C-alpha cells in the first residue's frame, strides 16, 4: 500500500513539477507534455481524428501494450487524475452514502469511448471533455496555477519590507508572474462535480466515465500479473467492500473483474486470511481457466447506437456555420478575430488535434494564450487564442509549440518561427492619437520588432502618423499590447494572412506570398521619410521647424 501511495505521490509531484516548470517564465520547459502523451485515450482519439501518428505517441502505446501484462497499473499508480480523485476520496469518502454495486454503470465508460471513436472517425475530436490527462492538466494549469500565482504575489508583497531590511534583492526585486485565464468558473464547477462524484462511490470517474480507463480495461481482461485468491479465503467479503473499483464479484470474492482492477492491492492488505496475492500465472491453461467474466459489455445494439451518436454529433459540428470545409472560398465564415498560436496547423486539423489540455496556455510566458468560449462553435471550446491586449506574442518565443502533445502547434526551428505569421495589424485611424488627435505617439512603431510600422508626414498633419506595412507585419501584437488608447486600442491584430500549414517551412510559404518578415536588422537605414511638400525643408520626425 505504501509503495503505491509513494509511486502515486511521486507521479503527481512530477506531473505538477513539469507543469510548473512550463509556467515559470524564466526556465525552459522540460518535456511539459510527457504525461499527456501517456494517456492512451487521448492519444488514440487524437490519432484517429487528426489522422496522424507521432513519435511522441509512443508512451501511450507502451501503457496500452502493458495492459495484457500488468493490467490497469497506469490507473492505480501513475494517472494524476486518479491520484487527485483518491485525494478527494480521502476528504469526502467518510460522507459517502453506501454505494450499491453499480455493475451496469461500468459500461458507461465504454459508451463514452465509442462516442469519441464515432466522432473521431469523422475527424471531430471531443476528447477534450473526456480524456483524463487533458482534464487534469487543465484543472491544475488553468484553475489552480492562477490561484497559486495570486497567493504567491500576496505573500511576496507582504514580505517585501523584509527584503529592504535584510538587503535581499530577490525579495526586493522578485517578481511573481500574474497568470489570468478565461472560463475559470466553468472549469471550477466541472472539476468540483467530477471530484465530488466520489460521494457516490470511490473512483466514480475511473469506474464509470473515463474513456482511457475503458481502453485499458479492454486491454486488461486477463493480465499476466493479476489478482489471485488462495484456498484460504473465508468469503468474509471484506475485499469486496473495500475495493475502490468494485472489481470483485460480491458473492464470490475469488472472482475478479480484472478489467476493472487497478492493482491497488487493498484486498491484499485487508484480507484477514492473507489469501490474496498478485502474481503471474502458471501456464496458458491457468490463464484461460482464470479468465474473468468479460467486462459487462453492453449489447451490440447499444454500442452501435452510441457510435452513431458520436458520429452524429460530429456531423452536427461539421455543419456549423464556423466550420471550414474544402478549400477556402466564398461562403466560408471562420470565427471573427480568432488568432491562433504561431505555427498552428490549418483550422480543421487544429481542432481535431487540439485536446484543450491548456499546456500551451500555461507555458506561454506573456499569458496571451487564452481558452475561447463558444465563439467558434462547440468543437472549438477551450482551444487557445492569442490575445494581444493581454500579452504580446514574442517572435523569439515558441513555448506553446514545445508544450503541445499532439503538435496542433508545430515545432519549428527558431529561424523559421520568426516567419510564422499569425495575422496582420491594422490601424483604426479615428481612434489613433496621432491620426485623429494630432498627438505625438507612435508607440506602435517604437515596439514593433519587425519594423512593420512606418511613420510618415501627411499633408498638413502636425505630427508624423503611423502606417502598417502589411507584408512586413507578422501579427505578433506588440503594437496592440502597448497602444495607449483606452479602452480598445487604435491598432488591432486580425488573423488576416495568417500562415497555417500542415508541414513545411513558414519562410518558404511566406516568401511565396510576398511577405518580408524580418526582425529589425542592424545598421541599415530602413525607415525612409518622403519629404513633405508643405514644409520648406524636410524636418526629422519629432523635431520642430526652427
Amino acid at each position, binding site marked *: 500500500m505504501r509503495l503505491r501511495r509513494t509511486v502515486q505521490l511521486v507521479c503527481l509531484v512530477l506531473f505538477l513539477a513539469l507543469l510548473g516548470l512550463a509556467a515559470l517564465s524564466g526556465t525552459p520547459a522540460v518535456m511539459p507534455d510527457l504525461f499527456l502523451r501517456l494517456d492512451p485515450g487521448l492519444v488514440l482519439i487524437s490519432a484517429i481524428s487528426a489522422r496522424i501518428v507521432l513519435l511522441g505517441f509512443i508512451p501511450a502505446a507502451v501503457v496500452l501494450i502493458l495492459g495484457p501484462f500488468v493490467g490497469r497499473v497506469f490507473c492505480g499508480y501513475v494517472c494524476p487524475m486518479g491520484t487527485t480523485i483518491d485525494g478527494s476520496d480521502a476528504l469526502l469518502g467518510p460522507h459517502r452514502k453506501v454505494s450499491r454495486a453499480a455493475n451496469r454503470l461500468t459500461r458507461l465508460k465504454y459508451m463514452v469511448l465509442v462516442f469519441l471513436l464515432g466522432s473521431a472517425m469523422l475527424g471531430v475530436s471531443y476528447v477534450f471533455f473526456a480524456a483524463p490527462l487533458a482534464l487534469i492538466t487543465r484543472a491544475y494549469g488553468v484553475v489552480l496555477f492562477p490561484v497559486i500565482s495570486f497567493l504567491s504575489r500576496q505573500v511576496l508583497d507582504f514580505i517585501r519590507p523584509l527584503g529592504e531590511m535584510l538587503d535581499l534583492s530577490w525579495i526586493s526585486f522578485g517578481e511573481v508572474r500574474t497568470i489570468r485565464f478565461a472560463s475559470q468558473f466553468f472549469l471550477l464547477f466541472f472539476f468540483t462535480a467530477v471530484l465530488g462524484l466520489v460521494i457516490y462511490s470511490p473512483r466514480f470517474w475511473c469506474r464509470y466515465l473515463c474513456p482511457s480507463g475503458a481502453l485499458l480495461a479492454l486491454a486488461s481482461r486477463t493480465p499476466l500479473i493479476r489478482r489471485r485468491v488462495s484456498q484460504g479465503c473465508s468469503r468474509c467479503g471484506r475485499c469486496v467492500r473495500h475495493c475502490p473499483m468494485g472489481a470483485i464479484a460480491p458473492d464470490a470474492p475469488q472472482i475478479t473483474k480484472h478489467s476493472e482492477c487497478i492493482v491497488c492491492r487493498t484486498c491484499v492488505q485487508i484480507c484477514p486470511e492473507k489469501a490474496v496475492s498478485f502474481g503471474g500465472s502458471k501456464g496458458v491453461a491457468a490463464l484461460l481457466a482464470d479468465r474473468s467474466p468479460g467486462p459487462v459489455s453492453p449489447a451490440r445494439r447499444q454500442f452501435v447506437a452510441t457510435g452513431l451518436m458520436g458520429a452524429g454529433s460530429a456531423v452536427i459540428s461539421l455543419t456549423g456555420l464556423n466550420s471550414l470545409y474544402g478549400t477556402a472560398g466564398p461562403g466560408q465564415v471562420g470565427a471573427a478575430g480568432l488568432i491562433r498560436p504561431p505555427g498552428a496547423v490549418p483550422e480543421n486539423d487544429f481542432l481535431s488535434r487540439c485536446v484543450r489540455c491548456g499546456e500551451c496556455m500555461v507555458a506561454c510566458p506573456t499569458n496571451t494564450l487564452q481558452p475561447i468560449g463558444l465563439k467558434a462553435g462547440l468543437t472549438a471550446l477551450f482551444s487557445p487564442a492569442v490575445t494581444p491586449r493581454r500579452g504580446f506574442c514574442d517572435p523569439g518565443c515558441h513555448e506553446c509549440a514545445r508544450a503541445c502533445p499532439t503538435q496542433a502547434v508545430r515545432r519549428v526551428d527558431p529561424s523559421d518561427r520568426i516567419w510564422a505569421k499569425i495575422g496582420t495589424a491594422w490601424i483604426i485611424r479615428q481612434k489613433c492619437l496621432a491620426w485623429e488627435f494630432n498627438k505625438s505617439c507612435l508607440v506602435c512603431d517604437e515596439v514593433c*520588432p519587425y519594423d512593420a510600422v512606418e511613420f510618415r508626414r501627411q499633408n498638413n498633419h502636425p505630427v508624423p502618423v503611423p502606417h502598417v506595412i502589411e507584408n512586413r507585419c507578422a501579427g505578433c501584437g506588440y503594437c496592440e499590447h502597448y497602444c495607449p488608447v483606452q479602452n480598445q486600442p487604435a491598432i488591432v491584430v486580425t488573423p488576416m494572412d495568417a500562415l497555417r500549414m500542415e508541414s513545411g517551412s513558414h519562410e518558404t510559404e511566406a516568401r511565396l506570398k510576398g511577405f518580408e518578415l524580418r526582425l529589425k536588422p542592424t545598421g541599415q537605414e530602413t525607415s525612409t521619410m518622403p519629404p513633405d511638400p508643405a514644409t520648406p525643408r524636410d524636418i526629422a520626425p519629432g523635431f520642430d521647424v526652427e
Partner: protein
Amino acid sequence: MNHHLSRREFIKWQAKSGLFLATATSGFWLPKVSFASAAADIGVATGAAEAATRAAVDLIGGIRSVVQPGRRVLIKPNMSFSRAPEYAANTHPEVVKTVAAMCQEAGAAKITILDHTLAPAKRCIERSGIGPACETIAKNMVHPINDPSFYAPVTISKAKHLKTTDVAKEFLKADVLIAVPVAKSHSATGVSLSMKGMMGLIYDRSIMHRLDLHETIVDLATLLKADLTVVDGTRVLSTGGPGGSGKVITENTVIASRDMVAADAFAVAKFEWYGRHYKPTQVRHIRLAHERGLGCAALDDLSIQTARL
C-alpha cells in the same frame, strides 16, 4: 621693533620663494590644476568608452561632487529593448558599468540600475550587455521593474498636466539619481535623452501620450530631476529611433552635466540627426524645460570643456 634683514637672510628667503614657485606646478606642493575654479557646466570627452566617461564626469567636478560616501544611488540607463549594443537602442554597457564603478569608488552604500522595459525583461538585460557588464563589478545591481508592485503613487507639484503618477519605489528611497541615456532619435519626440528616459521610472506611460507627450516629459522631469546626467554618445542612433534600426554613427563621445536640460541640449546640437544638425530649441520638450526653468538649454551661456583622449 624693526627686524633688520641681513643680506644673507634676504638671499635665502628669495631663493626659497623662487624654488617654491618653480616647483609649485610640479604637483608636489599644490595641485597641478585647481578643479574648483575650472569645473564646467558641460563636460565632453572623446575616446574609448570607459576613459571618456570618467573624463567627462571629471570635467564637471568629479563623481564625488554628486555621490558622497554612504549615499544610495539610482542609475537610469536605456535598456528597454532586447538589442545588442551595436544597434545603439540601449546605453552602451561599458558606460553604465563605468558610472556604477565610479559610484562605488565614491563610497556609495547602495547602487541600483533600473528600467521599466518594453521587450521581455530578462532578454533586455542580457542582450543589451548591461546585465553581464555590471555583474563584473557587483551582483544584484541591475533589475527590471515591470511589475506594478514596484511603484508607489506620488503627486508632481510642479506639473501642468501630469499631476500624479506611479513612480518607482526605489526612486523615493534613493539619494542620488543619475541618468545614463544613449543618444538616440525618437520618432515622436525628436530625440530620446535624459528627460525622455525618465519615462522608464514610472508605471503608466500611456497617459503621457494621451495628454501631451512633450509637456508631460517636462512635468516628469520636475520630479525625476537627475543629479548627474551622462549621455552615451559612443554610438549615436541617428535615425530610426528609439528602437532602431537606423543609421548608427560612431562618435566615441560622452557628455556629462549636472543639468539634465543642458546635457540634452548639447547632445541635440552636437550630433547629426537624419543627415543634418538641429538647434536644441527645435526639440519641444527641451525648449519647454528651459522656459519652465528646469535647466539651461542656451548653450552660449554655459561653460563647456572638452577633453580628447
